[in-house]
């Protein structure tokens, strides 16, 4: 299990004059999944970029504490909404990209690739190109690539949002299982509340732009024991929806900027 915590202190961010995040403090606890929900455009992707060091916040700090496992090759690792696969590389080649230029020798690299392809059910697709795969299979590659580097913190930006509803349900089960069993610390951005209550130990609710932290909800039931029909999860989802419903409606009517 990952013993790394990721803590954001008083993060604010603005794109030029557009204030996007306002004084956000939260912590992804070691080995837990922190879910960020909020209406579209509230700054979730911005916050995730800041948390993983892909974006410098206007103010505030992000700290990582705890030791990453010794086999970790890239402590802060992303899974992207649009998969971000290289179209000219095969499934195995895309996973390999994350391992090339690291201290792994060729043999252990191949072993790692085989291992994560096995975990994600991609073994028979190892030589396929991304364009030959369905959206769900492509995101499996995204997950396999991320798991291959043994991350300390996994940062996922709406990993299932580009998929159709049925594929999403199937992958949600798989991903929740993979994340829970690997014990990685994770931050999971979504606008889908049923995803939030399925994978989160904590659910942080952001207001509409500029995103402020409205509430953090803990869910104690272990992830592997959760079922979509659990009454307490269903009522939690309804409660979250009441929290953000008005914000979502207002955000939808707002004019686009930039």
């Amino acid at each position: 299990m990952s013993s790394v915590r990721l803590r954001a202190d008083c993060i604010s961010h603005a794109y030029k004059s557009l204030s996007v995040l306002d004084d956000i403090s939260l912590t992804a606890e070691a080995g837990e999944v922190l879910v960020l929900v909020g209406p579209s455009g509230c700054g979730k992707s911005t916050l995730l970029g800041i948390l993983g060091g892909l974006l410098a916040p206007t103010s505030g700090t992000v700290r990582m504490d705890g030791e990453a496992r010794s086999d970790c090759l890239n402590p802060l690792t992303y899974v992207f909404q649009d998969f971000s696969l290289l179209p000219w590389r095969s499934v195995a080649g895309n996973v390999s990209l994350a391992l090339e230029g690291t201290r792994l020798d060729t043999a252990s690299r191949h072993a790692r690739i085989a291992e994560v392809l096995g975990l994600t059910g991609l073994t028979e697709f190892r030589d396929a190109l991304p364009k030959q795969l369905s959206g769900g299979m492509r995101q499996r590659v995204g997950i396999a690539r991320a798991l291959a580097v043994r991350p300390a913190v996994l940062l996922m930006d709406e990993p299932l949002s580009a998929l159709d509803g049925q594929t999403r349900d199937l992958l949600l089960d798989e991903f929740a299982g993979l994340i829970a069993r690997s014990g990685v610390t994770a931050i999971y951005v979504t606008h889908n509340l049923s995803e939030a209550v399925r994978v989160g130990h904590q659910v942080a609710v952001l207001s509409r732009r500029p995103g402020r932290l409205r509430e953090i909800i803990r869910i104690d039931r272990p992830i592997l024991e959760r079922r979509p029909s659990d009454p307490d999860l269903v009522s939690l989802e309804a409660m979250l929806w009441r929290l953000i419903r008005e914000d979502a409606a207002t955000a939808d009517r707002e004019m686009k900027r930039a």
Partner: protein
Amino acid sequence: MPDPRGHPVPFRAWGFAPRDIPLAAAATLIGVLVLWQAGASAGLISTKFLSAPAQIARALFDLSVSGELWLHLSASLRRLAFGWLIGTAAGLAVGFAVGLFTLARSPGMAIVSALFPIPKIALVPLFIIWFGIGEGSKIVTLAFGVFFPTVINTMAGVDGVPRGLIRMGQSFGLSRMAIIGKIVLPDSLPAILSGFRITTSTAIILLVAAEMIGAEKGIGAFVLSAGNLYDTDSLLAGIVVLSVMGLIVSFVLGRIERALLGWR
């Protein structure tokens, strides 16, 4: 009285879907050649102004047997190869620099935008003054003409690399060189290769022009002197050689594209 079963919905999506018929393409070309030859044999086309296909073929044969063709062709191909390679290498280097580095971008683009619109043929006399009437001025003319479109296509290719892919590379801790070599270069390759189609044909045009301005050897010079002698057979033979040259180049590029861009 309306039909109670309703009426069938008429199909409306006709046309706008042209298909390729390779046989029709071949038949058209052969047909034109046959008509041309027939017209010339029947005396409907004056062969003094437009030689018949058979005469052109005969001239081609004679020129290749006498070795004259190879003399001119090899001179032209050497200039083409050197000029194109030099212009392409320089263009790729500048194109990548402008696409990747702030420090190179504005200065590079200022110079490219200022010099790109100059018709390169107009510079041949200047290059002759600078580099002499020999090979130097011709190769520089070609290189110069190839350089600008290469810069522009390369830069467009690099600019077009999805930022998300670059962020992905950075998020996995790839080095700058690895990002350039494993993400930027392959992603901009389609744009670069389609630029090669433009620059190879530009190079052939400039080659002929430069050879007409001052050269003893080369297909351009050969066509010009055949014209001066009213030798339309040889003149057209030279033009056939030039178009075959263009066809071969485009065929080779097509092969390279298929080999390197099969993932698309």
